[in-house]
């Protein structure tokens, strides 16, 4: 078991190092299949580890690699924690990653920096696995920073484009703000419990006072909002779409952005101690889900719509964490990884076929040109809209049922979001695949072509997973499926009185009703064409002016302060002090040089006079 777990983690690193050291000698195909292969091996090993774990009781193994930091009372081992939560994360992270690596071989074909791209991807998978498998907060933080760094590199992959370079910086800086939260949470926990290892922290969780517990939860939430793109740190994610599409699919939809949700789930025993903390989490999640969904309704870039949709879906997960439905959050995380990766890769296939065009207004009528992308995208669309029996119907339904028990107000918000989700995704679908053909201009009159097999295979696999993903956790077999498997990881679950079967059926009917309503409204509006400013509010298109708000409250005051420093502090205060010292030294030297006359007799006179003074002094003292 220990070896298997270590190998899961190390395979992507091996791939990274092989390409790093031999890069120039390898052909593009070799790099691509090597990078894909190591991740696929990781996935196979994860499956093995999963079955090994099933046969163990309790389902929990700590693998000690080596002692890493040992200073005073701080002991941080490099150790892995294999439990239901981490192995579930491993399975879907490596599985989705392997598919997206395969897709990238086709999508990035012929790119100048093909090797660099796979280097980053492999390093990213390694960091992500480190994040989820670590048995302490410090090691998790290393992975946390690692994925942030890879995300930065990959967002600004086309760094010669201004927009990509600044999007990378934006992602990095927003994540730094969140990191402060995570660091403070680590400081607090270490000062109160004296350890940073998860299991020990949970053992000592009882010694935390409610105030400290709330503080820890809120700072963790800040960390999670940075990484998982929640309010108030969500607007880096849409900009991150400047990266290549496989990156958007892998990092900014399926895996990295779920790290914040994973962290909150991992720290569930601490979350259980703080009611105000969990309420805040639920509100942040619910509001983010709704706000992002409204924004997605007015975006004109196909990837931007999907980006805001991701923010919105992660909002659902955070909402689920807030109400204590951790396994529901993980359930949605997995099914979201399936269908959002599918949608992103599908959109990538569309963009690929249109020579890089991303504007929805220049698509339309692609149905008959993309015989594989179209049906898989159709499945992705129905899944995210919440149509039964696809995966998201079950996972979103699970979350909404839990939220219904917790707060009716948040439930209404959640249902409204579901309505908007169905609406904006249908708009996207109709504008892309239906209606008249508006792409002739970008393809120079040619027919768009379907993508190669390396790109369509992942689409088919992901579509199949989206269809059947629901069986992971059907409501009537809860205890024998995903949530039953995950429960030991979540220790102290705040008890929820589960809704009766009848109420659950009622809630499910509501879910289906809003999904169908959203789809019908969107189709009736958007089949007429893309130019309907009545339904595209500029307020929503400009992201509720959120960036302008930050610019006005943080950006411009800081710029003004820097300008002040440049205009006043630097020339007057700093240069003033430096020049002042120099000038005063020169003036006093000018005065003193007059003493050096060059006449030896003057010096002799001075000596004799000094001697006389000493003699007079000595005589006076004696007398």
């Amino acid at each position: 078991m220990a070896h298997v777990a270590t190998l899961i983690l190390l395979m992507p690193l091996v791939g990274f190092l092989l390409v790093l050291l031999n890069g120039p000698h390898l052909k593009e195909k070799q790099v691509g299949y090597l990078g894909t292969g190591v991740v696929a091996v990781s996935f196979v090993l994860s499956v093995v580890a999963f079955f090994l774990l099933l046969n163990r009781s309790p389902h929990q193994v700590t693998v000690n690699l080596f002692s890493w930091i040992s200073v005073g009372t701080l002991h941080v081992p490099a150790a892995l924690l294999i439990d239901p939560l981490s192995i579930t994360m491993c399975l879907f992270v490596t599985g989705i990653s392997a598919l997206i690596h395969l897709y990238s071989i086709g999508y990035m074909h012929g790119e100048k920096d093909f090797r660099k791209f796979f280097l980053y991807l492999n390093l990213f998978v390694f960091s992500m696995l480190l994040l989820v498998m670590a048995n302490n907060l410090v090691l998790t933080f290393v992975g946390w920073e690692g994925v942030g760094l890879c995300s930065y590199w990959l967002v600004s992959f086309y760094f010669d484009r201004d927009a990509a370079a600044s999007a990378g910086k934006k992602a990095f800086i927003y994540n730094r703000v969140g990191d402060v939260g995570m660091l403070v949470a680590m400081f607090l926990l270490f000062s109160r419990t004296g350890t940073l290892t998860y299991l020990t922290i949970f053992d000592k969780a009882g010694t935390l006072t409610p105030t400290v517990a709330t503080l820890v939860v809120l700072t963790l939430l800040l960390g999670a909002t940075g990484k998982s793109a929640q309010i108030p740190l969500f607007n880096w994610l849409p900009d991150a779409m400047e990266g290549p599409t496989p990156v958007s699919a892998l990092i900014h939809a399926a895996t990295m952005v779920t790290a914040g949700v994973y962290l909150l789930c991992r720290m569930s025993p601490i979350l259980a101690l703080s009611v105000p903390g969990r309420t805040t989490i639920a509100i942040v999640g619910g509001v983010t889900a709704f706000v992002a969904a409204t924004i997605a309704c007015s975006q004109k870039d196909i990837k931007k719509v999907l980006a805001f949709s991701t923010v919105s879906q992660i909002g659902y997960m955070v909402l689920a964490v807030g109400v204590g439905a951790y396994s529901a959050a993980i359930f949605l995380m997995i099914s979201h990884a399936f269908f959002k990766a599918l949608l992103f890769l599908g959109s990538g296939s569309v963009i690929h076929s249109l020579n890089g065009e991303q504007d929805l207004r220049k698509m339309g009528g692609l149905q008959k040109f993309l015989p594989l992308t179209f049906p898989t995208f159709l499945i992705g669309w129905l899944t995210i809209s919440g149509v039964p029996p696809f995966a998201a119907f079950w996972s979103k339904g699970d979350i909404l049922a839990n939220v219904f028990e917790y707060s009716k107000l948040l439930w209404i918000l959640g249902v409204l979001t579901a309505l908007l989700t169905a609406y904006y995704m249908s708009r996207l679908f109709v504008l892309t695949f239906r209606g008249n053909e508006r792409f002739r201009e970008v393809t120079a009159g040619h027919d768009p072509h379907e993508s190669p097999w390396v790109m369509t295979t992942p689409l088919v696999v992901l579509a199949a997973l989206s269809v059947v993903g629901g069986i992971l956790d059907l409501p009537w077999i809860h205890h024998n499926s995903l949530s039953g498997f995950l429960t030991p990881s979540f220790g102290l679950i705040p008890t929820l009185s589960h809704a009766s079967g009848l109420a659950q059926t009622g809630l499910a009917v509501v879910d289906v009703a809003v999904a169908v309503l959203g789809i019908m409204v969107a189709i009736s509006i958007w089949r007429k064409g893309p130019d309907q400013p009545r339904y595209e509010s500029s307020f929503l298109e400009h992201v509720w002016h959120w960036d302008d708000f930050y610019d006005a409250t943080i950006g411009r005051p800081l710029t003004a302060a820097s300008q002040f420093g440049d205009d006043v502090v630097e020339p007057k205060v700093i240069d003033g002090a430096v020049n002042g010292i120099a000038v005063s030294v020169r003036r006093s030297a000018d005065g003193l040089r007059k003493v050096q006359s060059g006449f030896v007799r003057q010096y002799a006179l001075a000596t004799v006079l000094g001697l006389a003074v000493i003699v007079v002094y000595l005589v006076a003292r004696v007398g």
Partner: protein
Amino acid sequence: MNVPAAWYLILAAVLFGVGAFGLLTKRSALIMFMCVELMLNAVNLTFVTFARTLSDVGGQATVFFVMVVAAAEVTVGLGIVVAVFRRRSSTSVDELSEMKG
């Protein structure tokens, strides 16, 4: 005949005064050197006087040190004076003012 110690001291003071006066008034480096020697020997005389009065050989020992140092100083100093004279055909110290501030 026993000469009182005060007489030696008075003689030393007079010699020192003559040396100091010469040092301050003469321009020739050579003469100034001799004046300095005069002052040094005036001080030597007081050392010896007190050595005898107080029956302490420390004073006599010091005189030897002063003489050695003075000899070394004269060697170096005369070397400089000769070098200066060769370049300028004059030993007037008033002309040696290149190093003034």
